[in-house]
């Protein structure tokens, strides 16, 4: 693809993004990538980490927002902070370890010391700096806004903008459903993360997460040898739906199939009698009737734009590093106090995901092949037309399509264009339109 410049107006964006096709240069142009960082990654809410990753006062973990190095810390009062892992003196990384417990961070370069809330506590030989006034302005950089929903911590570099709940909009339901599966209502994200690097543009990954068209082809090998029923969930006859949740958030909703099959824990490829402890705990917490519904419906398959993919029993976090380089972080979701279920979820996750995963190695192969292909001179466009003729509204007013339709991909690009067209501006982005129950959009 010929390098382009970033479009300056709506007409120029028309040349790159149409409702049902997008231009290949959007995956290859470094100028576009830089603009995406400013307009999407350093402005909207981006997922950073889970509260259970810093369970104790003064715990911290090293995280990221795209290429930005972030420290997620919990202070002594229990409040969570997102700080830039960059000494304010000479820009050295302050924290090296992936995690730890410390009320203060001391930079290894010249000993500057910061509290875990970002405040500069001091530097060696302070008379070399005159008065103390300067100290107040030399705290660690901060992610301007920090908020969490159901334990999931997000950060936004924009001082102002929609609240996290406004940003999540229709996707809040995914978090609610996920924690309802845990008898205590809490998740335990403590199994550690695999980091899987792809020589591909980050948007390839985002689009694939809720692409119901690919599993039968990309994953045919494992579905056939493991005698998995997952392929059928995404078949032509499937009653599952693809959904545009607004705000770039998208879903493959498999509940219609699970309800048709009517097998508690069928969503997890097992039966309730194989997990007696979990079933007992869930019934005690939610009541037998509701517990049964929860165990039929299972966990969500939702891509929360731009970087958190809740994939039933796993969390994926997408980290763009360059226009053709992306790291996918992945861990097994664990429910607080459920060792029996957790062990199975961990083993299933290890088998499926990461560099050697029976599923994800093949997805990643596709991302990298796409990235090679998208450099071809002609045709210049990628096609997102599937199911345009059968788009419809569900009872909540969300646009849905058949399981294999490209409703999610069109929704992702529509939102992308809104964010990119809004320009660099002052960071104020309107909250996504939320459909109302009667199907209209506010």
């Amino acid at each position: 693809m010929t390098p382009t410049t970033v479009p300056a107006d709506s007409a120029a964006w028309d040349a790159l993004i149409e409702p049902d096709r997008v231009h290949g240069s959007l995956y290859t142009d470094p100028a576009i990538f830089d603009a995406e960082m400013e307009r999407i990654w350093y402005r909207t809410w981006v997922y950073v980490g889970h509260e259970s990753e810093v369970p104790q006062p003064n715990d911290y973990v090293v995280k990221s927002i795209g290429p930005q190095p972030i420290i997620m810390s919990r202070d002594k009062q229990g409040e969570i902070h997102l700080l830039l892992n960059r000494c304010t003196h000479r820009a050295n990384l302050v924290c090296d370890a992936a995690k730890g417990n410390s009320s203060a961070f001391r930079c290894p370069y010249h000993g500057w010391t910061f509290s875990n809330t970002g405040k500069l506590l001091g530097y060696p030989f302070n008379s070399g700096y005159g008065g103390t006034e300067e100290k107040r302005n030399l705290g660690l950089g901060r992610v301007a806004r920090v908020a969490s929903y159901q334990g999931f911590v997000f950060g936004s570099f924009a001082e102002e903008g929609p609240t996290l709940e406004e940003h999540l909009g229709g996707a809040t339901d995914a978090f609610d459903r996920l924690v309802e599966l845990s008898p205590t209502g809490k998740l335990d994200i403590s199994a550690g993360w695999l980091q899987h690097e792809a020589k591909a543009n980050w948007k390839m990954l985002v689009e694939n997460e809720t692409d119901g068209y690919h599993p039968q082809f990309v994953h045919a090998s494992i579905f056939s040898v493991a005698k998995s029923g997952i392929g059928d969930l995404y078949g032509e006859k499937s009653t599952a739906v693809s959904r545009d949740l607004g705000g770039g958030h998208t879903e493959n909703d498999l509940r219609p199939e699970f309800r048709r099959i009517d097998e508690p824990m069928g969503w997890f490829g097992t039966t309730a009698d194989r997990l007696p402890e979990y079933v007992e705990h869930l019934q005690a917490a939610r009541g037998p009737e509701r517990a049964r519904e929860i165990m039929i419906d299972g966990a969500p398959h939702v891509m929360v734009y731009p970087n958190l993919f809740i994939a039933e029993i796993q969390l994926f976090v997408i980290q763009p590093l360059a226009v053709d380089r992306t790291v996918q972080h992945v861990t097994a979701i664990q429910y607080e106090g459920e060792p029996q279920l957790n062990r199975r979820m961990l083993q299933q996750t290890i088998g499926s995901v990461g560099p050697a995963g029976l599923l994800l190695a093949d997805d990643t192969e596709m991302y990298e092949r796409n990235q090679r292909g998208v450099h071809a001179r002609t045709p210049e466009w990628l096609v997102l037309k599937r199911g345009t003729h059968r788009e419809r509204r569900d009872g909540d007013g969300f646009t849905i399509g058949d399981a294999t339709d490209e409703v999610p991909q069109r929704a992702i690009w529509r939102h992308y264009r809104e964010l990119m067209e809004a320009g660099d501006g002052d960071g104020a982005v309107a909250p996504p339109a939320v459909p109302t129950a009667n199907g209209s959009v506010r």
Partner: protein
Amino acid sequence: MSERRERSLPLGEAAAGDTPVELVSEFAAVSLVVDRDGNGPRLRIEDLKTGQVGFLDPLELETLAWLPEGALHRFLDPSFHRWREERERG
């Protein structure tokens, strides 16, 4: 001396307290052990990077347990004591 200690303390407790514990983070590495050379026990803290040793008695430790948030901040300032300029110009 050590015999007397064994009589006055349950054996398990004495053994545990006399075993040095190393606490290491990416910022510091210290070794902790209960020191019984004095008339009462105290905590001996050794900075494993420099060999510097300090002691904290039970009252000092109790005080630490009651410290309000941020009370250690001035001690964590590298210039407070350890890396203080000798030629302070006031």
